């Protein structure tokens, strides 16, 4: 490729000729781009036509173009969703759980990456790193099984151990407030290590001369972290923060679905489980498409707002 890019020598005159020349030179590059573009078109853009289901009366045997429009100028399902209390609870819980995840979970990989970075004994660092990111590969179904084994009030290991010290069982899973804590904790435990990878990669990009210079100036370990490492990580942190903010209303399905139980439904029902119960199981596909569309629109707004904010503070943002 470099050979081709560097081979640009003659400069033809005239716009048409210029274009012809350009295509002649670079058509292979565009051809290579074609595959991902086709992928996105087939699997990401064309299914978007089905967003129309939100405004139509869904039928399993008709194409989206043939389905009749829903009542109230097509907005029937939105009206229905917004007058459904469960939807509001799901919305509230989604935002609450995701915000807590962000506040408690976002700094963790940064801190862990900084700690790992300071380790002098390289082999220990590598082993630790591997161990902390392994839980990421466990599915939430397995983690929820582990959680039951550990945290159930009478048969959970943790509560049995606490009982030996005369402590009353802690309702980790069966009291809404405790459950939220368990939910956030398990999320951090699972993904903290995985999140460090990107920061550790960014750390290698910091010029070592800066550290040497700081040492010469008499900076200690914390001074170096504060004045060199963290500023070096800043662009990465900002980009990841923007992407996380874009997900504040997005909701994963397996985590709340696997961890929820009937006693904590007041906090564990989120938009994705609402969609599952009402849409997939209750076959109210139009209603839940409307909910999904609303969710996506809000996510995009969040993303744009966070990006604009980042740019305002002098960062590059994500585009």
């Amino acid at each position, binding site marked *: 490729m470099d050979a081709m890019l560097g081979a640009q020598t003659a400069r033809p005159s005239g716009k048409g000729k210029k274009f012809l020349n350009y295509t002649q030179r670079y058509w292979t590059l565009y051809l290579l781009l074609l595959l991902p573009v086709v992928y996105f078109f087939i699997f990401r853009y064309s299914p978007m036509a089905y967003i129309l289901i939100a405004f139509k009366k*869904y039928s399993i045997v*008709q194409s989206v173009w043939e389905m009749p429009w829903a009542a109230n100028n097509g907005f029937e399902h939105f009206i229905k969703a917004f007058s459904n209390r469960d939807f509001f609870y799901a919305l509230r819980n989604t935002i609450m759980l995701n915000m807590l995840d962000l506040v408690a979970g976002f700094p963790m990989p940064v801190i862990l990456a900084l700690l790992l970075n300071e380790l002098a004994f390289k082999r220990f660092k590598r082993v630790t790193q591997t161990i902390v990111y392994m839980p990421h590969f466990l599915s939430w179904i397995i983690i929820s099984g582990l959680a*039951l084994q550990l945290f159930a009030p009478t048969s959970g290991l943790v509560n049995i151990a606490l009982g030996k010290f005369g402590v009353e069982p802690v309702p980790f899973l069966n009291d809404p407030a405790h459950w939220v804590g368990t939910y956030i904790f398990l999320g951090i435990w699972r993904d903290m290590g995985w999140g460090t990878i990107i920061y550790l990669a960014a750390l290698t990009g910091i010029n070592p001369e800066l550290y040497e210079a700081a040492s010469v100036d008499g900076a200690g370990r914390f001074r170096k972290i504060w004045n060199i490492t963290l500023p070096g990580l800043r662009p990465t942190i900002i980009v990841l923060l923007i992407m996380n903010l874009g997900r504040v209303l997005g909701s994963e399905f397996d985590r709340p679905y696997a961890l929820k*139980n009937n*006693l904590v439904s007041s906090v564990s029902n989120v938009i994705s489980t609402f969609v599952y119960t009402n849409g997939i*199981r209750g*076959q109210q596909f139009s209603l839940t498409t409307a909910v999904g569309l609303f969710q996506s629109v809000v996510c995009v707004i969040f993303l744009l707002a966070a990006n604009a904010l980042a740019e305002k503070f002098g960062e590059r943002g994500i585009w």
Partner: protein
Amino acid sequence: MKTVSKTISKALACLLLVTLLASCGGPSATPPPVTPSTLPAVVTPTPAPEEPAGGGPVSITVEIFDRSNDGGSKPEDNFYTDFIKEGVLRDHNIEVTFVPVPRWTEVEQLNNLLAAGDAPDICVTYSYPTIQTYANMGAVLDMAPYLEDNKAQLPNLWGLLGETNIYWDKDPETGEIWAIEALLRHNPRIGTFVRQDWLTKLNIAEPTTLEEFEAMLYAFKENAETLLGADADKIIPFSTSYDVGWRADHLMTMFVADDITDKDVYINGFDDRHFLLPGIKEGIRVLNKWYNDGLTWNDFPLYGSGDTTEDNLIKSGYVGSFMHNWDYPYRNGEEGIHHQLRAIAGEDAVYTSVEPFKNAAGVYRKFLPGPIDRKVFLPATNDEPVASMLYLDWLSTVENRKFLQIGEEGVTHEVLEDGAIKTVAVTGEKIMNSPNNIDYTIIINGLDLGDPELTMDSYAYNYSGVDASLVQKGYEISINDGRIGKNVQVGQITAEEGMGPVLTEKRDIVLDQAVIAPVDQFDAVFDAGMQDYLASGGQAIIDERTAAWEKVFGDAVSLD
């Protein structure tokens, strides 16, 4: 070097283009899966009363539940499917292919299959509202013309199901039949089980009233050390699960007025756990007291559907009593509770059925289902409705369904001296993946040998390795003073559409939270939960059912 890399890049790019075009050809050649737009919304049948005309055999596909049972055979390909395939091909020149669908997620799976236009020609589900929803979308064939025009060709199907089951779901106005109801041959539903050996050990008589039952639970708790020794702290006098409505049914319905009218049963009958019947709250209050007195398994709401933790507690011998399907402890042969419990807790450890829940009128009333079971329907993509009907007729033939239910003599059953059939559990290729192969005999649930007396005699031997008297006792108690469900044909209740899963989930939440509430907060928790249930669609269903009843039956409150 430059030219070489340039050539290679171009060659690669061309290769890419070729593969791209080739792969594009695939999807575009087949129509988009969700849009079988050629399908008319309503399919009018062409009368084809004769069997498929000469030429090659006609092919149909049939849904079969996959239970993923331990040591089971492939549900779509085994000894019994071979029997069906050979028989149907021989008798009707129809080739049958089975399509496995996971038993516990059948509705979700059917959604996918129907949306993709891949649904089997003959579908079966326990959920009528699902079929109604599909029918409203034009995805289901109206079976009425096929059943009626071909009545002469379908003597066995009509003979087995009769007008009751065939017309059960018939729309009173349009006459459409979206599904026919399989026959439920026996209708025992729920039973209460107590550890016989514990009663003996503590010298307690079998409880016959709620007070006695409760006293027994406290006695279990107080004598835990006698009963379980070192495991005394693990004792669970009464076990229940997240599905309280099922697992405390008789306790709940004993508080329903004995003279409740058919109308009230119907308009409050959307929930199949009797959640809406007036009075059941008092039953939950009793359970709430038991929970707070430490008589139940505290972790029950944490374990969901299909979890085996509670079964394992029962098998380990920690559980004194529980309520469940009338034959629950006797099911599943060697793997079942009956055998496992005896292996772990000793030969005399056995569950016996008791009948303590008497209502205010002094009657052990039980709400039993009508004679209906699974619902069989034909999706609109079915091109062979007549062949499908012939398949159902073939299954309904006594010899065929009898073979499927009891299998081969000397292998899966033996004939006792009095002629009764005793089922024998087998492993290997002739294993029955479901009791009596219920999954293959989609038009009937429950042993039926063609002769009512022989059937009843054989029924108790249907549980391999379990003393027939235990089964007999459970059966009799479960149907004693039963009130059998009636068919109320008032047409479709639109408020019910799509509400099943949502309200079922809510019901479980309300019941679970009410059971574990502190005693002084029980009323507040239960009432708030019920309020939420009604506001989320429950009340709309009750209102529409009331209106529909009054439209058809006027002021009458009884169906008789």
